[in-house]
Structure formats: C-alpha cells, structure tokens
C-alpha cells in the first residue's frame, strides 16, 4: 500500500470515530449544548481542555518556530502554559461559581450593562475569528500533505469537514470528541519524538534525550547543534541572543500568558465541571495533558533542525562531499517541493545544496570567497512543515507519517470546534437572545448560531488562503487581543468590588482598540495584505515592540483606563457588590 492510501485510511478512520462520537453524544437541551449539562469529570474536562486549546499552532507550527528561534522560542512554551496558572488562580473558580453559559454573559451581569456585554461579544469575535484563521491554515497544510494537492484544495476540504463537525456537536458532543482527539494528537506527537530521540541519543523520553549525548559520542546534542549552527553562520541555538530581543520575549510571554487566561473558548470549558473545587483541579489536569506535548516540543524542534541540517550537510562544511547532491536528495524533499512549501535553487550551479545564514554578511562573504557559495539554496522553507515532515526526515515507517497527519488534523479540528461554539454562542445567546431578540425561540437561537458559524468558516477560510504570517504567529495575535480586552475586565470584575460599568467598558475599548490599531498598522487592515501602514520590522516598531507582544501593553492600558474612569464615575449598585462577594466563596448558605 502506498503512503497516500495509508494516510487517507488512517485519517478516514479518525473522522469516522469523531462523527460517531458526535452522533452518540448529541445535545438534548440548551444546558447540554452550551455547557455539557455541567456533568463533566474534572480529569476528563482537563483532557478535553487540552485538545480544545492545543491547536494546529501548537501541534504543527510551534516546534518549527522553536527550531528556528532556538532559546527565545521559550516565549511560546512558557506563554502558552503559564496562562493556566493565571486561569486556575484568578478566573476559572469564580466564573464557575457565577454559573452561567458564556463569558460575555458574566461581563454583562457583573457590570449591569448590555453595552458591556456587546463590547465583550465584539472582543470575543475579533479574537476567535483571528484564532480560527490559524486553524484553517493548519488544516490546509495537513490536508495538502496527505492528499498531495495544492494548499487551496486542502484548505477547502478542511473547511467542509470543520463545518460538518461543528454543526453536529454541541458542547456535550464536542467534549467527548475532544477526548478522543487528545489521545490521537498526543500519540501522534510523541511517537515520532520517541523514535527520533532513540535514534539520535538512545533515550526513550525526548525531554531527557534533548539534554543527553549523541548516540555513540561524548558530545551533548545541544552542544553539537550550537556548533553546527555557528558553522553555518547562525547564532548558537541555546544562546539568549539571536531570535527576538529580551524585551520582546518578555512581552510576548506575558501577552500569551494573560491571553491564554482570557480566551473565552477555554474559559467556558470550566463551566462544564460540577463544582468550584473541580474547576481549580481541572485546570491543573489540563496543564498536565498540555505539558506532555509542550515539554516534548523543544526536543522535536531541536532534533528537526539537527536532522535537516545534517541531511543537507552530511559531511564537513565547505568540502564537496559535505553537501547533498541535488539528485541524491531524499524522497520527502521531493514530496514537499510539490506542495510549494519547500523550494531549492542551485544558485552557484554546482549541483549540490548549501543551506546557511545568508543574512550574516560577514559569513556570507567568507563563504563566497572560500567555498564558492552564492546564497542559501533552500529558498523556501516553510516553518510549518517541520513537524509534518519530521518522521520522513528521520526515516520513520509509513504508519507514523499517517498518524502525524491525523494528529495535526485532530488538533486543528478540536480547536476549531471549540472556537466555533464560542462564536456561535456569543451571537445566538449573547447578541440575539440577550440583547436584540429576548423572545427568540430555542430553535431560532440554534439556527442563528449555525448561520454565524458558516459565515465565520468562510471568512476564516479566505484569510487562511491569504495568511498574514505563520500559523503560530497569527494565533499569537488573537492572544494579544484576548490579553488586552477580556482578561483585565474579567479579573477586575472579580477582584475589584468597586469596579463599575463605565470603567469596564472604557477599559475594554481602550485595550481592544489600541491593540488592533497597533497590529493593523504593521500587518495590514483586517490582515488584508498590502494595506499595512508601516513595514513589519524592528526598526519601525514603536519602542521596538513586536505587534505579536503588544497585547501585554494593551492589557496595561485597559487596567489604567478602567481605573481612571471608575474613579470619576459613581460606584456600582449594592446588589452588584454582593454578587462579587458571592463569586468569591465556593459555598454561600444564603444566596443573594
């Protein structure tokens, strides 16, 4: 059986499983549709949260980003895990105690204002749609790998599957499907990593393998990698310089952390557990399940770049047999060339491939003089393919390659389903039912949600075809928006009894608008390419702040604006202050 048939079979089997579970666990009431009837075991919820939240970006893009960033890639690792500490400590238990269906609903009730609720819906839509773009791109890449078709066709088939899937399951169906998707995803991620770690270092656990010596040698893998990178004109892999500046690493980590804690589709997962104490514990379990992938990813990234460089440069650099002859290149390179995500150009016409840092002028000049190199000959190397091509690079069997493709699709689908549920519940429950049409029937509410879902998929699909950056970076922008608008408002709603509606609305608007403006200035208005006001490079950034890390500053603006406006306006009514007292304790004997 050839690779393509095998991959299709494996992916087809996982689809059958998801759709089967979605049909088996269909929602029978609005409570089941929005919060799975609040009957989900905390460990099961932790696993579903992990799948919901670990997206195509985590699965497909992150290890590739780390591979090319080295040390500073830690911003993504710490940012996307540290947010769970904030969520468990500052938000989840209190919002569970409040006990409603959506995040804008809490904001609307706590700040006794429909305007606040609408602003929260707008923030939620802005970030969720941005986030869905990243998933669409991930789905497209995974499909184009399996079916060996152009990205556009892969993306369209992905959109169709996501649509069927999201419409079939409410929160109840999504939860149980996500548990299956987590198992597939983590298996698909760790199996190749274990194989590669065994091959390179002889260690079963990649987390240990990355810190071990190379098989049969005394040299540590990371030391050897540092040396190889330097030999090719790059900075050392583990060194703190190179990659992003320390300021941007700090801000990006912070923006990703508070953004993670403020993501509505993750927060609503904690509405599904029975008790407040379950919400705290469940966040811990979620991080355990996420941590399995996140501590493996640095090993995957480092080992992928190691394997790639050593495939292209099998011998001593600068010597003739030190460089891979173009006609000898392995089959996986040929397959990825067809997708257009990998491309070579024999610039010095020696029939061999040279890959090095041509932006390092000193090194490039030396290489031209000494070795006769006329530019790096891997002219396109999409970082997103690193995880998908990894098992092929390491020469692993066909079923592992099929499994990785299925895992990537599981990661994208589970997150897309969670996001689409958050989008449709914001429109049907918060906008229509809550504000514009309070008398809408339950069926009308569901129909509205589904139409909203379809529009979101089409819009995201278009942007998935014309993406503003790599999948993980697009998602990082969504996190910036969550950080700047929702997280500060939710936190002040719980921890500042005197915070009033005027302050909350002002804070959300200031956080949202400043962050959007800053991002659009460099990435283009609504991400349409060609509409950017300034080039997206360090010399044009305000105080050198990367747009992907601006959310942390937007959050500070939100806090400050809210505080100033609160001081100038009257304090919230007594019953609201009692509501705050109430969400702060797990059990209240006299509910008010």
């Amino acid at each position, binding site marked *: 059986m050839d690779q393509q048939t095998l991959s299709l079979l494996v992916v087809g089997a996982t689809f059958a499983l998801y759709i089967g579970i979605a049909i088996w666990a269909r929602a029978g009431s609005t409570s089941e549709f929005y919060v799975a009837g609040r009957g989900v075991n905390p460990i099961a919820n932790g696993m579903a949260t992990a799948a919901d939240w670990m997206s195509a970006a985590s699965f497909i893009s992150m290890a590739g980003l780390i591979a090319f960033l080295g040390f500073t890639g830690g911003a993504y690792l710490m940012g996307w895990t540290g947010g769970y500490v904030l969520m468990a400590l500052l938000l989840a*238990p209190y919002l569970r105690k409040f006990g409603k269906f959506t995040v804008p609903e809490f904001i609307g009730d706590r700040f006794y204002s429909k305007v606040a609720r609408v602003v929260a819906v707008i923030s939620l839509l802005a970030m969720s749609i941005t986030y869905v773009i990243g998933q669409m791109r991930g789905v497209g890449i995974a499909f184009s790998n399996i079916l060996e078709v152009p990205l556009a066709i892969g993306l369209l088939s992905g959109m169709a599957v996501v649509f069927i899937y999201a419409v079939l399951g409410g929160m109840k169906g999504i939860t149980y499907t996500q548990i299956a998707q987590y198992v597939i995803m983590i298996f698909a991620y760790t199996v190749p990593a274990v194989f590669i770690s065994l091959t390179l270092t002889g260690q079963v656990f990649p987390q240990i393998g990355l810190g071990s010596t190379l098989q049969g040698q005394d040299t*540590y893998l990371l030391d050897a990698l540092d040396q190889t990178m330097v030999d090719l004109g790059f900075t050392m892999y583990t060194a703190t310089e190179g990659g992003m500046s320390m300021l941007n690493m*700090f801000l990006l980590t912070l923006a990703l952390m508070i953004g993670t804690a403020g993501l509505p589709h993750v927060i609503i997962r904690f509405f599904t557990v029975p008790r407040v104490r379950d919400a705290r514990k469940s966040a811990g379990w979620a991080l355990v399940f996420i941590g399995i992938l996140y501590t493996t990813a*640095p090993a995957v990234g480092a080992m992928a770049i190691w394997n790639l460089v050593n495939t292209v440069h099998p011998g001593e650099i600068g010597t003739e047999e030190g460089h891979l002859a173009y006609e000898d290149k392995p089959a996986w390179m040929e397959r990825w060339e067809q997708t257009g995500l990998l491309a070579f150009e024999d610039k010095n016409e020696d029939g061999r491939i040279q890959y090095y840092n041509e932006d390092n002028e000193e090194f490039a000049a030396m290489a031209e003089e000494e070795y006769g190199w006329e530019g790096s000959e891997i002219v396109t190397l999409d970082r997103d393919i690193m995880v998908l091509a990894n098992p092929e690079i390491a020469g692993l069997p066909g079923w592992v390659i099929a499994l990785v493709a299925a895992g990537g699709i599981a990661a994208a689908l589970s997150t897309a389903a969670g996001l689409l549920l958050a989008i449709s519940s914001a429109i049907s429950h918060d906008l229509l039912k809550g504000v514009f049409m309070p008398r809408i029937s339950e069926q009308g509410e569901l129909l509205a949600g589904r139409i909203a879902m379809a529009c979101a998929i089409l819009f995201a699909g278009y942007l998935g075809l014309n993406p503003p950056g790599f999948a993980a970076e697009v998602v990082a922008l969504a996190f910036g928006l969550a950080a700047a608008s929702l997280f500060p408002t939710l936190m002040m709603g719980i921890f500042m009894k005197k915070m009033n509606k005027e302050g909350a609305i002002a804070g959300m608007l200031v956080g949202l608008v400043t962050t959007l403006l800053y991002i659009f200035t460099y990435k283009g208005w609504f991400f349409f390419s060609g509409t950017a006001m300034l080039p997206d490079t360090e010399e044009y950034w305000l105080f050198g702040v990367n747009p992907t890390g601006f959310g942390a500053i937007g959050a500070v603006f939100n806090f400050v604006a809210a505080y100033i406006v609160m001081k100038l306006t009257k304090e919230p009514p007594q019953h609201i202050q009692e509501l705050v007292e109430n969400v702060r304790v*797990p059990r209240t004997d006299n509910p008010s």
Partner: protein
Amino acid sequence: MSQEDLSRQAYWRAHLRLLAICLAIWFFVSFGLGILLAAPLNAFSIGGYPLGFWFAQQGAIYTFIVLIFVYAWRMNVLDRKFNVHEE
C-alpha cells in the same frame, strides 16, 4: 458587621495571601529564571541543558503544573477552615 462578614473578610485575606505567594513563584520561575536571568544561568548546566535554556523550555512548565495542584490543595484546606467548602 456580622460574624459571617468578618469570617468572609478573613477568608478573602488568607486567599489573597496564598495568591500572592503563588504568583510570585510563577513570575520568578518564568520571567526571572527563564528570561531575565537566563544568560548568566546558561553558564551552568543540568545534563546537556544550559540551565537558563532548561528553565525557558522545560523547567517553567513543570513548576506551573506543581503550582496549580498545590494551590488547589491549599484552597481546599482554606475552604474547610472557613466552612465555605462544597459538599
């Protein structure tokens, strides 16, 4: 102010103290050891990992997991002490 209100206030203060300790550890391990102090820490190593690199790509994550479970455990103790725990 009623007895219950006073007890609630004491509960909230104890809770905030616990939060402050946990968040200080959260900040120190990630932003401190993993970013700001990573360059000097890289002079040391565990196995083949430079120490600062290890905190940024491994250690911080392990700390976060332990931190959440310790917090959940301490909060359960606190809930019982102030008699606000759930059945």
